[in-house]
């Protein structure tokens, strides 16, 4: 672990997800040396609401801030509407973690993580202006380095590190780099496409900011199993909490479209069972309200549009993701479907392309499928590789399912299988493939 460089207190107000922020909060409230009982979760929650209760200036009221923030999450807004540099901003973070854990709503939880991640990115990219220095980065490279260290990322500032006429002001240990970069899709994050020398990945400033953004996204996702039922009851009985929960319920109701998805309804064009692992993973992530990468969005849209789903159904996939904007999503889906622009309908990516985007999940423990790895088993026992998630996968999955179905048909008394119908259906799959 990197050594902890002390960070200015203001950083903990602005970035409440930093390690050590709860100690700063307790210190500011004069509770650092209090007994365990005084700082128990329930007592702490009550104290926070008492300490930051201000109905005269609603902006400084903790309950108001939390409610406003949750409204932002529910409406897919990606910004804080209240101050992000005061102690209340710090105080609301642990409470939001608790409230979202109580709610168990993954879509809201991921929307919260998305807002914190985007805020981190924007804040670290921002500039400050002064008469003496003009406009310059609000956070210098060393300050970014300190934030990395606080989060356990081994990253050093290397001011004069010029390679091929480009200055790479940061070097990150490959282990730290991989721990975050593997969560990002796209060729540019692959180690092979980085200047990687002697265990260090050379990075420009904006790369480090994007890596921090992803780190924050993962760190701020609520732990839905953190609170046991007994404690949950006690927390829900706190009046401020119960009021917030009640309000959130209403907000969710008002935004019901965002919280319901047509992804897994029974009358899909291609049944969910026939979806390849890569698409199942993207759908799962979308259904949990996780932020999808650009490539993930394109892949799932191309998949839906090329499996006879309507534009409406395709737009529906994105309703649950944190930055959903219906008009933008609809425009882009229509473009991909060929209803706009030059009228060209985009084809589905092939497996090689998906692999290069790191979206192939053939061996994923949850969604993986042996079919993708070994290929479709032909009648003669040989295997045909799966090269395309629609043409090849769907065809061979149908064959596989029908073979399973056929093997489960009970045998008659004379030992023969009553399999005329299933034999027919395999033939129909073959003829379908021939047509394609």
């Amino acid at each position, binding site marked *: 672990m990197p050594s902890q460089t002390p960070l200015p207190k203001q950083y903990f107000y602005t970035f409440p997800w930093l390690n050590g922020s709860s100690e700063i909060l307790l210190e500011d409230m004069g509770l650092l040396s209090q007994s365990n009982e005084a700082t128990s979760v329930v007592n702490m929650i009550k104290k926070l609401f008492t300490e930051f209760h201000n109905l005269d200036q609603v902006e400084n009221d903790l309950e108001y801030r939390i409610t406003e923030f949750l409204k932002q999450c529910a409406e897919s807004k990606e910004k804080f509407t209240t101050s992000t540099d005061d102690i209340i901003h710090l105080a609301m973070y642990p409470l939001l973690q608790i409230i979202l854990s109580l709610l168990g709503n993954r879509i809201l939880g991921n929307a919260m993580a998305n807002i914190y991640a985007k805020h981190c990115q924007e804040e670290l990219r921002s500039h400050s202006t002064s008469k003496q220095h003009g406009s310059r980065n609000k956070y210098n490279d060393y300050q970014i380095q300190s934030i990395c260290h606080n989060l356990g990322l081994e990253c050093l500032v290397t001011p004069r590190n010029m*390679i*091929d006429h480009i200055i790479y002001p940061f070097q990150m240990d*490959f*282990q730290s780099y*991989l*721990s975050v*970069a*593997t*969560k990002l899709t796209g*060729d*540019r994050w*692959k*180690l*092979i*496409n*980085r*200047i*990687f*020398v*002697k*265990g*260090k990945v*050379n990075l420009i400033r904006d790369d480090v900011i994007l890596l921090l953004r992803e780190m924050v996204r993962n760190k701020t996702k609520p732990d839905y199993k953190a609170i046991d039922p007994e404690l949950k009851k006690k927390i829900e009985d706190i009046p401020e909490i119960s009021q917030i929960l009640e309000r959130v319920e209403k907000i969710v109701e008002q935004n019901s479209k965002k919280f319901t998805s047509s992804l897994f309804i029974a009358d899909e064009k291609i049944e969910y069972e026939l979806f390849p692992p890569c698409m199942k993973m993207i759908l799962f992530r979308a259904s949990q309200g996780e932020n999808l990468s650009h490539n993930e969005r394109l892949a799932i849209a191309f998949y839906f549009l090329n499996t006879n789903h309507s534009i409406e159904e395709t737009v529906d996939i994105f309703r649950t993701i944190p930055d959903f904007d219906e008009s933008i999503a609809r425009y882009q889906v229509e473009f991909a479907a060929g209803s706009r622009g030059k009228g060209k309908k985009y084809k589905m990516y092939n497996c090689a392309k998906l692999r*290069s985007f*790191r979206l192939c999940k053939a*061996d994923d423990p949850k969604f993986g499928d042996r079919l993708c790895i070994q290929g479709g088993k032909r009648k*003669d*026992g*040989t295997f045909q590789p799966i090269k395309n998630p629609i043409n090849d996968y769907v065809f061979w999955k149908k064959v596989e399912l029908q073979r399973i179905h056929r093997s489960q048909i009970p045998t008659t008394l004379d030992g023969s299988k009553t399999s005329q119908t299933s034999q027919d259906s395999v033939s129909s799959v073959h003829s379908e493939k021939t047509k394609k």
Partner: protein
Amino acid sequence: MNLTQYYLYKLFQAYYKAHLKNYPTISDLPNREFAFIRWDHPGMQRHIGYPNSNFLLDYLVKYAPRHSYRSATIYSTPSADKMEHKGYLGCDFVVDIDSDHIPTSCQHRHNYVICKNCGKLLLGDKPEECPDCHSKKFKKIVWICDECLNVSKEQVHHLIDGFLLKDFNIPLSAIKLNFSGHRGYHVRIESKVFRSLDQEERREIADYVTGQGFSYNIWNYKPVQSNMSGFRIDQPGWPGKIAREFYKVLSQGSDYTENIFSNPRYGNPIRSNVLRILIERRIDLIRKLENKNPIWGIPHVGPTTWHRIFEILRDLIKADIDVVVSIDVHRLIRLEGSIHGKAGLKVVDVPYEKLDEFDPLTDALTFPKESTNKLTIKITAPICPPIRIGKITYDNFQPDEEYTVPLNVGLFLLCKDVAELIKN
């Protein structure tokens, strides 16, 4: 157990008994899962844990298993019979290099299959089905020769020299190397950092050392008017590796260059007319590479051909590893110090500095090479390819003939299942 198997069991047992005192130490032994394939029991016995090495050695002496494995993973309860109950604590980073996965010319000379149905013999790899009776069941004979052992060794050098030491900056002392007991090597890194890597992070390392996912766009490799903007030999990362390999190939002469691009290990060769142009411009290209000039303009050689040239160069640079092994965090690997039941050779530690002088067919023999013990065997397979043990190559084995051979030679042939023991 037939007579041959019983004798092999006794030989293995004698080996383990003789090595009780100097048996290699297994790191974190109480946290490892062990697994065995015994002579007297079908299938694999797994989910076995030992509190210390005495228990392991007792088992090895008692059952002298045909194959012995231990987990690369460390668990809090390694003997739990379900993976989710084992308590995953971390997994060493393991790289398996085996000439089984690498196309070599010798495979077609010494590997063969026999159809279990009609007895048809076919040289090379296992076909989909027997051309005569269409059966899909074969007995496979995989042999060992200097060529395949050297290919594995070469790939270990690629991995350790080319990637782990230079790029990943891993100290040599942290890299453990074993001969696998058959046709390859296992490279292990047991540091805390590597043990904590998840599957995706391991995949990324595997992709890096195998050259997967290289993006021409990102590295700015593109046609500029009629030229190609290529790479420079002093560039860091993979572009520099490709440029340096290209320089190395071109510098070794026209014949060498032609051979590399017309006989690639993987994929299609470069078309002969294009290759001729490339060779004609060889000196010019060498000069450009030496001058670190990345603009390589050759008429009639377009971006697709350049990409293919780079793929061939990539395959020369990469470490040809079994990627699945490196990604898997629940892998069983051969137990150090055990005997490989398919070759009768030992799984031994090989210090990397001594890899070049390490000769598996001398240094991994189970019994002392100076042993005067002999075995009388009868060749049962239709073909028994030559085998070098120590400095002597044993060949001209004929089917159904009996031979009296040194103990290590007999052990190898019996383990390979091409011979049976003759009772004296």
